[in-house]
C-alpha cells in the first residue's frame, strides 16, 4: 500500500471515529446539541442526505451509459462508478440516522410503514439502489476475481468475462431507472410539501436529477484521476465525462432559474419573500453555488485543463462543494420563512408571519420566533465530516483490496 493511501485511510478513520463519538454524545443528550429549532426543524443532516444521494448518481448512470448507449471508452471507470455509488448511497442512509430522535424505533418503518409517506419510498429505493450498485460492482469484478485471494467468493461460471458482460448489460436498464428513481423520490420528500413554497415545485425533481448527474459524475472523475491519472488513452473518456457534467449542470441552472423567473415576474409577495431568503439573506452562498461550479465546468471543458491532474481534481472538488452548498440552501428558503403568513384583517398591504415556539429555553432569546439563523453546531459538523470520511475510507479501502483498478488493454 502506498504511503498516500495509508495516510488517507488513517485521516478518514480518525474523522470517522470523531463523527461516531459526536453521534454518541448527541444520542445521549438529544438533538438539543444541534442548532435546529422548532421553526427550523431540518438542517445539515437532511441536506447531507440530499447531497449524498446526488453523489450516488454518477456511478450507475455511467455504467448504463456504457452498456445501454455503448460509450465504451468509459469502461475502465465502470467499477469506480459502482463503488462510488455504493459508498454514497450508504453514506446518505448513515447521514440521516443522527437526524432521527428515536433511532431505536426505526424498526417501526418495517412493522408499521405508512405507505403514503415519501420517506418510506425513499428508504425502499435507497436500499434497493445500494444492493444494485453492490451487485453491479461484483459482476464487473467477477472476471478479475479468479487467481486472487477473493476467488472463493467468485461465482463459478464457465466464461466469467462473457457472463459479467452479459449480466451487466441486462441490469443496465434497471440501474438507470433506479439511479433516476432515487433522486426523483428524494426530491419528492420535499417537493410534495404544499406548505413550503420553496420546495413545492414541479421543477425540483428534474433539478435533483440534473444536479446529481453533475456531482455524481464529478466524484467518479476524481477517483478515476487519482487511480488512472491523465494518460492519453483515457482522454476520450475524460472529455465525455466533462461534457456530461457540463450539460447536467447547465440543465440544473436552467431548471432553477426558470423556477425563479416565473415567480419573480408574477411577483406575488409570498413567492418573492421565499426567493429573497436564498438570493438575498443567503446571497453569498447562492452566488457561490452558482458561480464556482459554473467556472469549474468551463475549466473542465478545456482540453488543456484536462491534461493537468491537479487542476482537474481541484475543479471537480470545487464543483462538488458548490453542489453541497446548493443542498445546504435547500433548507433556509423553507425554514427561514414562516408558512403561516397572514394579511391581518383591516390592514392594508401587510403580510405578517405568526411566530413559532422555538422549543428551546434561552435567556437571551424570545420564546416565540419568526426567524432563526441556522448554522450547524460543532456536533452536527463533526458527524457530517465523519460521514464524508466514511465515503473516502470505503473508496480507498475497496480500491486497495478489490480488483477495481485495471489498466485498459
Amino acid at each position, binding site marked *: 500500500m502506498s504511503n498516500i493511501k495509508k495516510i488517507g485511510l488513517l485521516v478518514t478513520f480518525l474523522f470517522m471515529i470523531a463523527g461516531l463519538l459526536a453521534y454518541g454524545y448527541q444520542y445521549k443528550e438529544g438533538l438539543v446539541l444541534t442548532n435546529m429549532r422548532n421553526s427550523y*426543524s431540518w438542517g445539515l443532516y437532511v441536506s447531507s442526505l440530499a447531497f449524498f444521494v446526488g453523489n450516488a448518481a454518477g456511478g450507475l448512470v455511467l455504467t448504463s451509459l456504457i452498456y445501454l448507449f455503448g460509450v465504451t471508452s468509459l469502461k475502465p471507470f465502470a467499477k469506480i462508478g459502482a463503488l462510488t455509488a455504493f459508498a454514497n448511497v450508504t453514506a446518505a442512509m448513515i447521514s440521516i440516522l443522527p437526524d432521527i430522535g428515536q433511532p431505536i424505533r426505526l424498526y417501526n418503518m418495517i412493522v408499521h410503514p405508512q405507505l403514503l409517506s415519501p*420517506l418510506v419510498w425513499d428508504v425502499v429505493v435507497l436500499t434497493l439502489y445500494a444492493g444494485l450498485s453492490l451487485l453491479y460492482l461484483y459482476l464487473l469484478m467477477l472476471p478479475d476475481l479468479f487467481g486472487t485471494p477473493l476467488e472463493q467468493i467468485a461465482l463459478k461460471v464457465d466464461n466469467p468475462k462473457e457472463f459479467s458482460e452479459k449480466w451487466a448489460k441486462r441490469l443496465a436498464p434497471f440501474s438507470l431507472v433506479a439511479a433516476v428513481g432515487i433522486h426523483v423520490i428524494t426530491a419528492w420528500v420535499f417537493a410534495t410539501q404544499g406548505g413550503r413554497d420553496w420546495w413545492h415545485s414541479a421543477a425540483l425533481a428534474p433539478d435533483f436529477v440534473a444536479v446529481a448527474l453533475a456531482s455524481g459524475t464529478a466524484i467518479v472523475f476524481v477517483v478515476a484521476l487519482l487511480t488512472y491519472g491523465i494518460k492519453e488513452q483515457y482522454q476520450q473518456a475524460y472529455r465525455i465525462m466533462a461534457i456530461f457534467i457540463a450539460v447536467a449542470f447547465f440543465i440544473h441552472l436552467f431548471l432553477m432559474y426558470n423556477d425563479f423567473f416565473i415567480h419573480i415576474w408574477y411577483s406575488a409577495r409570498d413567492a418573492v419573500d421565499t426567493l429573497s431568503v436564498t438570493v438575498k439573506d443567503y446571497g453569498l452562498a447562492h452566488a457561490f453555488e452558482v458561480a464556482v461550479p459554473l467556472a469549474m465546468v468551463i475549466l473542465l471543458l478545456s482540453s488543456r485543463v484536462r491534461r493537468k491532474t491537479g487542476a482537474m481534481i481541484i475543479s471537480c472538488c470545487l464543483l462538488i462543494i458548490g453542489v453541497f452548498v446548493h443542498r445546504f440552501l435547500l433548507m433556509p428558503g423553507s425554514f427561514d420563512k414562516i408558512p403561516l403568513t397572514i394579511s391581518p384583517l383591516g390592514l392594508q398591504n401587510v403580510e*405578517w408571519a405568526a411566530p413559532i415556539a422555538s422549543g*428551546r*429555553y434561552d435567556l437571551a432569546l424570545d420564546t416565540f420566533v419568526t426567524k432563526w439563523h441556522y448554522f450547524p453546531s460543532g456536533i452536527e459538523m463533526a458527524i457530517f465530516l465523519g460521514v464524508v470520511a466514511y465515503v473516502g475510507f470505503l473508496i480507498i479501502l475497496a480500491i486497495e483490496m478489490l480488483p477495481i483498478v485495471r489498466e485498459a488493454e
Partner: protein
Amino acid sequence: MRRGMVIDLEKCIGCSSCVVACKQHNAQPAGNWWNRVVTPGSDRHLTAPTEGMEYFLPIHCQHCQNAPCERVCPVGATYRSNDGTILVDFERCIGCRYCMAACPYGVRQFNWEDPKKGIKKYGYQEGYTYGYPYDYRLEGRLVYTPVRFKGVVEKCNFCVHYLVKGLDPACVRGCPGNARFVGDLDDPTSEVSRMIRNKNGFNLLREKGTRPNVFYLPPKRKEV
C-alpha cells in the same frame, strides 16, 4: 362525527389563558407550546399595529381534514382518530420531524432534550409537577403521557384524555371570554356549524388546501 372547534375572535381578549391552561393541563415540557395567541400585524402581543385595529388570534393544531402531517409520517405515529382528531402516538414516533416540515401552521413541537433536564434548565421549582397525571391510551395507543420521551414530536390532541370524561378541552374551559366552542362539524344543526354559517367562519391558510377543523369567526370592526 367530526370534532371541530370554533374560535370567536370578537370574544378573544388576547389574555393567553388558553395557552397557559393548555400548557399546564397537557404537562408540556419547558420549551414547548401547543397553543399560542398572537396579535396579527404586530411584533408585540397586545399592542395594536395601527390604532384601534388590534385583534387576537389563538393558533394551535388545526386538525386538518387533509393533514400533510398525517400523510408524511413514515410510521403512522401521527394518525386520525374516528372523530377526525389528529393524534400523535408517543410510543411510535421516531422523531424524524417530517411532520414539522410538512405542517404550515408551525404548531408541532419537538422534544429536543429529555424534558426532565429542560425543567431544571428553566429553573422550575424542585419537585414541581403539573398536568393531567395519568397516561391515556386510545385503542391501545399512547396519545397522552405526562412525562414525554426525548426525541418525539407532540402537539394539540384536542384534550383527548378529557373527552372520555365528558369534558371539553382545557383551552375551552379556561377561556374567560368564552370565545371557544367545540362540537360536531358534520352535523349542520350543531352550535359550531351554525356559528360558522351565520358569522362567516373562516380557516387559516385556506389556499394550502388543508381543510382545517378549526374555524375562526371574524372580529367586528372596532370603534376608534
